């Protein structure tokens, strides 16, 4: 998809900015992401209509001037629901990525620092094990065991982010450990923990940002799926997946109720994916190729 122009050499500060501006994926993805983040932020101070108020007289109205995206089966404004629902998606996805990073990154750094040891082996085999589980089934099981709630959805999604970040951190760190500047740091007497955090971590940050963006988008899809089957955020907290579940009964005569939440998910995930691709191109022109 991306055939932009970051072809040559190590960028200078200005070069990076210019490359960023010429990177179509980054611009488009960034814009979509900004709309989504903006909608969530604005909803804290202003929404067109209060989403906790039902207005049954006004229920299931297709889009018109006063309700730009129409109303749902309780007469709530769909645009307002989407704005508040964006907060739920962001909160769940950000925290799930946070869990993955906070636990996965140190594990990856530790495994790389002790590369080849039993510890490394245990960490990596543990990762394989978590990886082998069908994440959706386990998420269903966790939310079933501890009750459906946004918190349990976060934990369920977050657990599967841990091996992702541990792996990518370890593989990024392994190549760095052979570099001269790390050798210099060791000669200077720094311990491996200090080297990991002072020298390795800043150098794998790019990788982590790109992967974080991708996991963020996967988190949004997962949250939508869980709340669609009733295992995510509970009513009255609006969430996109829940809105889709509610709309299903009315789909034959009120398709707008299903259309807009789905589009919101699609565009947000698309935006984050494009941004992830764009960031990767920006950080490492050599890796530029269709993401899988």
């Amino acid at each position, binding site marked *: *998809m991306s*055939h932009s122009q970051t072809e040559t050499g190590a960028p200078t500060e200005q070069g990076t900015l210019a490359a960023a501006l010429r990177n179509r994926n980054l611009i488009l993805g960034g814009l979509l992401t900004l709309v989504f983040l903006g909608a969530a932020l604005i909803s804290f101070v202003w929404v067109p209509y209060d989403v906790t108020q039902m207005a049954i007289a006004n229920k299931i109205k297709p889009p018109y001037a006063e309700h730009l995206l129409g109303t749902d089966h309780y007469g709530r404004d769909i645009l307002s629901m989407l704005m508040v629902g964006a907060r739920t998606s962001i909160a769940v996805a950000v925290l799930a990525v946070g869990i993955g990073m906070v636990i996965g990154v140190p594990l990856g750094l530790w495994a790389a620092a002790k590369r080849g040891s039993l510890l490394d082996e245990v960490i990596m085999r543990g990762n394989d094990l978590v990886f*082998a589980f069908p994440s*959706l089934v386990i998420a269903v*099981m966790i939310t079933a*065991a*501890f009750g459906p709630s946004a918190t349990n959805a976060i934990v369920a999604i977050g657990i599967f982010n841990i091996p992702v970040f541990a792996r990518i951190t370890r593989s990024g760190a392994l190549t760095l450990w052979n570099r001269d500047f790390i050798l210099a740091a060791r000669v200077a007497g720094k311990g491996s923990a200090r080297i990991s955090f002072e020298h390795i971590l800043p150098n794998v940050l790019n990788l982590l940002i790109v992967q974080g963006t991708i996991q963020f*988008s996967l988190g949004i899809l997962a949250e939508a799926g869980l709340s669609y089957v009733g295992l995510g955020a509970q009513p009255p907290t609006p969430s996109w997946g829940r809105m889709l579940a509610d709309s299903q009964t009315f789909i034959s005569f009120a398709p707008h109720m299903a259309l807009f939440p789905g589009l919101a998910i*699609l565009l947000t995930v698309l935006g984050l994916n494009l941004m992830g691709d764009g960031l990767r191109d920006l950080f490492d022109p050599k890796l530029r190729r269709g*993401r899988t």
Partner: protein
Amino acid sequence: MLRFTLTRLLSLCLSLAVASVVIFAAIEVLPGDPASIMLGVNAQPDTLAALRAELGLDQPMAARYLDWIGGLLRGDFGISYTYRTPVVEMIGDRLAVSLPLALFSLALTIVIAFPVGIWAAARRGSVADVAIMGLTQLGVAIPNFWFAMLMVLVFAINLQWFSAGGFAGWDAGLFPALKSLTLPAIALALPQASILARVMRSALLDTLSEDFIRTARAKGLSRREALWRHALRNALIPVLTIIGMQFSFLLAGGIIIENVFYLPGLGRLIFQAISARDLIVVESVVMLLVFAVIVVNFLVELAYAAVDPRLRAR
């Protein structure tokens, strides 16, 4: 190869053992006593105690775990708390929907992804390539249950080509049964086909930049000939790995799509069992899905090592 297989087999067994402990422990935390749910609020304490004894709920946790595992190994999954029928039969009935659904969508995934991925790789950088890659970006981002709902709206409600949900049953004949699985299979396949097409394309492009392709080109093969004769076979290795992962994903991922179409598969079973606190059914279905995923991954890894000897040394 034997040594590789044995070590992998050992790690397979270890994974399954850990998985079973995790699943058992998680389900044990589920609130609600199955015996009191089965008998209702007016149950006499002594009947309750009798039922708890019959279900083995009065046993210590370790004993119940061993009992459960021993049963699984013998193919005895226990008796459902709510339906009082053997869990094995219930799962068998549901598997008759879920497994064909997964296979159907896997077939669709491959049939869509291969030509698309190859076509895009052969025309790298062209308008067609850019357009296809753009479409696959959409395919990856689309929530499959939403796509399923849209298809119901268009093909079932408006055009009335398909029924909006339910399963015709295999007794009704092959065609009606497959027909009721078609929309769900497409919904499951679309995002997976998008992913696979992207993998196919990038694997081909990777291979095409290697030295042996340059040699083939130097010997006079056109780019397209080199792609078909040499690159494709080598690009298939990463593609096959992804297909293996996708099969387990489709099997497990069906549980949400089954809900959209009211299909009587494993997904519906697990949600019903959760709300009825039918722990033994939940445990068994989850274990079965985890087992399927781990075993498929294992087989893929073996196949991979058989094809590429370098991996055995790992």
